[in-house]
């Protein structure tokens, strides 16, 4: 279809990569199971890219690989962010050069209050939005600042998880199904927020099952199927391409 690998094999990625974030020939495994089977793509600065695909296609695995989590293991491939090689880093190092992941199961830390969950994000530099500013964005969190994070309602937890990413000064935001479990009004709010921070130059990869909504927001779309990229192009292309939508997105 439309995979456009634009690197030659042995070139120095830092110089030739035109993109802000680039992933090149990445292979990821959970133990012995081979999940992401050699994907390459680029994300330009300030872009919102929607990463779409069925359940189990490998979207989460891709994001986790980029964020350098312990699992899955990336056995082969390169990941560059703003001329820095992420593929040699541990997750905390990747975070410190500006990667922010909002994980799919939210990962609110048990035993900590809402505020402590946010403070935790501001311990290691670089620090982003102030906590007060985050409360302005999500007033519900401000009201519940002393409550233990895990007792929040599902939607509130999602807000906290996004807020926590913004509390750090990040260059790329990786969102794994951020709308899940949110009331439609809140989804509207978050969408606005994403537009807003995009204007300020934030680069975003958005994984979302609600493909229509995601495509309306995104500049570009990448579709994954069983660990490989089956489409990489603009969001309009997907919206216009009936076959593609029917086959991979059922919309």
């Amino acid at each position: 279809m439309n995979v456009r690998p634009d690197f030659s094999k042995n070139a120095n990625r830092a110089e030739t990569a035109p993109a802000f974030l680039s992933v090149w020939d990445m292979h990821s495994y959970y133990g012995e199971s081979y999940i992401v089977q050699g994907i390459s793509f680029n994300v330009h600065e300030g872009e919102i890219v929607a990463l779409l695909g069925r359940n189990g296609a490998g979207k989460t695995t891709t994001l986790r690989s980029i964020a350098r989590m312990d699992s899955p293991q990336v056995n082969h491939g390169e990941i560059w962010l703003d001329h820095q090689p992420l593929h040699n880093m541990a997750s905390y190092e990747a975070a410190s050069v500006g990667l922010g992941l909002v994980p799919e199961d939210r990962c609110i830390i048990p035993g900590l209050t809402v505020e402590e969950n946010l403070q935790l994000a501001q311990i290691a530099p670089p620090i982003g939005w102030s906590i007060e500013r985050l409360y302005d964005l999500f007033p519900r969190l401000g009201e519940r600042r002393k409550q233990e994070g895990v007792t929040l309602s599902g939607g509130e937890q999602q807000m906290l998880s996004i807020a926590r990413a913004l509390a750090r000064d990040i260059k790329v935001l990786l969102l794994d199904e951020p709308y899940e479990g949110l009331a439609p009004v809140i989804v509207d709010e978050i969408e606005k927020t994403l537009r807003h921070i995009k204007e300020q130059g934030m680069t975003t990869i958005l994984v979302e099952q609600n493909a229509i909504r995601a495509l309306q927001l995104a500049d570009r779309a990448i579709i994954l199927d069983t660990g490989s990229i089956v489409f990489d192009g603009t969001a309009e292309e997907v919206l216009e391409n009936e076959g593609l939508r029917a086959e991979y997105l059922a919309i």
Partner: protein
Amino acid sequence: MDAIILQILNGLDKGSAYALIALGLTLIFGTLGVVNFAHGALFMIGAFCAVTLSRLLSLSHEVAIPGQTDFLGNPATRDVPYVFDIFGETVGASIIDWAVPLSILFAIPIMILVGVVMERGLIKHFYKRPHADQILVTFGLAIVLQEIIKYYYGANPIPTPAPAAFTGSFDFGAVIGFDPNTIIYPYWRLVYFAFAAVIIGAVFAFLQFTTFGMVVRAGMADRETVGLLGINIDKRFTIMFGLAAAVAGLAGVMYTPINSPNYHMGMDFLVLSFVVVVVGGMGSLPGAVLAGFLLGILESFASMREVIDIIPGINQVIIYLVAIVILLTRPRGLMGRKGVMED
């Protein structure tokens, strides 16, 4: 009345020993979630730091004693410590006398090193492994450490007395208006109590007034996410381990004058310290300290003759009995946090 005050004093003292040992264990077990069966060994190594330093200080050369013979009939010799040669006899003698307090300084770097090496070299790989694996590896380590000490120091207890200034006892009863000789208390135990209070206070302060404690707690609950927030949790775990080892070691150093150290003293304390930590509640430092004092005091009361006469054998089982009652009435011990090692 005086008997009761006496047992409270005793209990406080015993309790401070329990609390101090449990404190170190809580840092590793209650906070890092590692079932550390080698904790007793750390306590024991601390005690042997004191033994080693006093041996080093009294390193001697032999001087023949004219006119005397040893048990085999050979000419007898007398050992003269090198410190006598360096500092003269009076200063030298008091340096040797003060070996145990001096060992505190000696033990801190050693224990931190031991803790850090242990964490980096071994425990690090076991955070994500099942508790069962942690038990096996730390138990193995405890045996190895213990056997090494036994190999070099023998199995017999090694007397390591407190400085002469602290060897007497103090007539506490006379001070507060009881008959003399009713409430006496050894000086060193008062020192131990004070020392424990200082260490406990310092550890509390460190974890309360810095974000360190929060980060480590968070890291234990969810390492991955803390990593995502740019925090190098491994480093902090290592520091925590070093700290815990130092606390355990210092508890050991200070304990040597109370009971002569031997190679299995760690195992003797191990089970008890797990009981204290769990009764206090997993993950709670104040809980561990409180439980230490509570069990210490109750144990003291249960060992009173008057009590044993009424319930024979109560002194044998009191700690376990109290532990059972507390755990049955309070699901997570005295002050345990929810979800820590509950499954």
